[in-house]
């Protein structure tokens, strides 16, 4: 007995990376700035407060974005990033520091675009900026709205006045 849907049935997931949505010309220019890197499970990809050395498209695997919560003596995973998503938007947003720890929770392959070169390209190539920035904003927006949902859960009203 199988419950698996046939390919492309129902709500089918995309397997492409986020960058594959860019026009071929833009993608070609980014190719020159990028490299594929494999991260082992448990490896720390970004450090909260540290420089963000690249903007990356996750090709496979899973990366946990974690906040340090000192009084819990632990780190809290607030979101995970997977294939078809971007990692490291802070590479192109001042002050270019990571806002979370990014830790691979399973073997993960990233396509990393060098931050310095990318910022320079964005400053000079309007068509690259026009194509890439919406993708980055989409990522930020998704994280933002996800955070709002979590805030509702954390701080939502629990009691109402009796009258």
């Amino acid at each position, binding site marked *: 007995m199988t419950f698996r849907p046939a390919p492309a*049935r*129902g*709500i089918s997931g995309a397997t492409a990376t986020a960058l594959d949505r860019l026009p071929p010309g833009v993608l070609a220019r980014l190719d020159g700035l990028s490299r594929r890197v494999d991260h082992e499970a448990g490896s720390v990809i970004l450090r909260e407060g540290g420089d963000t050395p690249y903007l990356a498209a996750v090709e496979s695997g899973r990366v946990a974005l974690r906040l340090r919560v000192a009084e819990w003596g632990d780190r809290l995973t607030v979101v995970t990033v997977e*294939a078809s998503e971007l990692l490291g938007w802070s590479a192109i947003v001042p002050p270019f520091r990571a806002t979370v720890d990014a830790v691979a929770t399973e073997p993960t392959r990233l396509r990393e675009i060098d931050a310095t070169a990318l910022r320079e390209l964005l400053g000079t190539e309007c068509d690259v900026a026009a194509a890439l920035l919406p993708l980055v904003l989409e990522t930020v927006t998704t994280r933002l709205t996800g955070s709002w949902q979590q805030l509702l859960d954390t701080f939502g009203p629990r009691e109402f006045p009796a009258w």
Partner: protein
Amino acid sequence: MVTQPAPTGWATSGPDSRAAARFLPWSRFDELIDALWADGRTVVAPVVEDGALKIAELARTSELPFGWVASTAPGIARLDRRPEGSPAAGRAFDNGTAWSGIKPWTFPAKVESLSVESGADGRLAVRVERPPSQPLAVVGARACDLAALAIHDRVLAGGPAIDPDYASRREDLLVVAVECALATSTCFCASMGTGPEVTSGADVVLSELDGGFVARADTTAGRHLLERLELPSAETEAVERATRQVAATRASMGIAVETEGLPERLLANLESPRWDEIAERCLACANCTLVCPTCFCTGMTVTSDLAGRASSAARTWDSCFTAGFAQVAGGGSFRPRHRDRYRQWLTHKFGTWWEQFGSSGCVGCGRCIAWCPVGIDVREELAAIAGKPLTTAEPSVPADDAAFAATAPVLVPGTRVLAIAPAAVEPASLRVEYVPATVVDVHPETADTSTLRLRTDDPALLAARPGQFVMVAAPAFAIPPISISRIRPDGLELTIRAAGAATSFLARLRPGAELALRGPLGRPWPIEDAEGRDVAIVAGGIGLAPLRGLLDEVLAAPDRFASVRLYLGARTPRDRLFVAEIDALIARGLDVRATVDRAGPEWLGRVGIITELFRGAKATGANVTAFVCGPERMMSAVVDVLADLDVPPEHTWLTLERRMECGVGLCGHCQLGTRFVCRDGPVFSVAELGDDLRREGL
């Protein structure tokens, strides 16, 4: 504007002898009351109490309010003596409406409705109270009171569910109505098409003249009553005076309400700034709902003995103006602001009532205006919100009313009765009896959630469908609605999160405990809608419980469906439900995509809100039927994502949470627009819900 001709039931002769008028002189009025008493009836009539007119038990006819006259204005209700020697000083009923109407006698503010007792052997006894039929006679009911009674007949006894207490009290009620000879400044029954002429609902109709009454019988019981009195025929002149008198009352009615298209106009203005203005004045004191003769919302008040072995539940009047009315488990309220509650009241009364019950919920008695401590005039608010100016023109009735009138049974030639809307649900699904069920296993799911396996041999419960719920009674606690999480050959499973006192008690039960269940209730998941289609089941947190039975049924016959996918969200990894079951299903090949909102470092699965599970998906959902349950905010976000993926709204199904106290659409708590969630849902399609899904404060 549709102008309603002034109806009258008065006639001196004609083919229908019921309409033939008699004359009851004041000197023989006692004979009428004596005849009612002789039949063993309690007789209630208007009397003066605490400076106001109230319908109370009559001990002698001298208690009637002879010579009193009411005057009203927004926020003002006065009762004064008529000057000695004035023409109407000797009249008993020429004085305006009683503040209470007759509702306290047919639908008392508090009645015992249920008792739950645990015996020494642990067996549970649940008794639904049904008062014995008590013969009652109401003397002095007004046209608006009778219209309200007809509305209550529809709401409380017209099905699909029937209030047993109301039905019992209504069984042997005899009504002697009096046509109004006085309209106070807050009366607007002519606008609402309910008066001042008494055209239906009374057994005997009186018109008070100087020296006596013109009387007619409108029913067999009324005819028998008048025949016993052997009254003479009324003089033609007296009948004409009665007709002119009530016509003059109609003509003297002041501010009118433009009812044509009112429901549509009102519901088109749900975001009017006027709601905020009213909220500045409205105290949410609930006076308007307490004096309203049609308001029927009730709550359950449970009292228990100290040992917690026996308790009783009383059905008490409640009001949609109180903060707790729309409050749900966990403390949230769907109508936290005064504006939400006033809007709910007004739009229900004048708008959604039509679709639910086939009539307006307002009879134009004006009590809500006079007894509002800050003088909010509903006529003024309707004109301001629904976009038509105040008028003093001829009264009208909604255009739809003409259609109802054409098909309604005619009691008196030229009159109409309030229309009866068809029942929305088959009566068989609305059960009022409780049956026992024994806890045979308790499985802790999370720190605050347990699954109870209950054994019962009740055929109705065993025939429950996924998505339905049961009311769960145990001594000393409120009776919560609980979704059925699994239907077994020998019973049910209920997965209960400890969100309040009752659910905390239930979630901590041990095997051997006995409960009483009422149900199954509500509309199930329409599994047949998914046949041949791709099934997407989307659950957030405890929302997986009502979907578990659906999942069981879908996976029992997967060939009926093109594919099955399960999308799961939970607050944290420790809040996931049915973990072992889900893991087993994954091992069997079910496509399960899961996420949690936050997690510690030990969690290696996905973290993020549930909509992220659909991230990057292609818009290939046209053949998908989705079943969604979770917090309303989560469902709203999922609905957006599914729409982006082309999942049709008519194939996207949700189960809603609202405060459900009665489970059968009688208490009013779970109203959402034109629906009662317990009775018409809790499962709805997104297409059915329309804008109501996201409407704030609804």
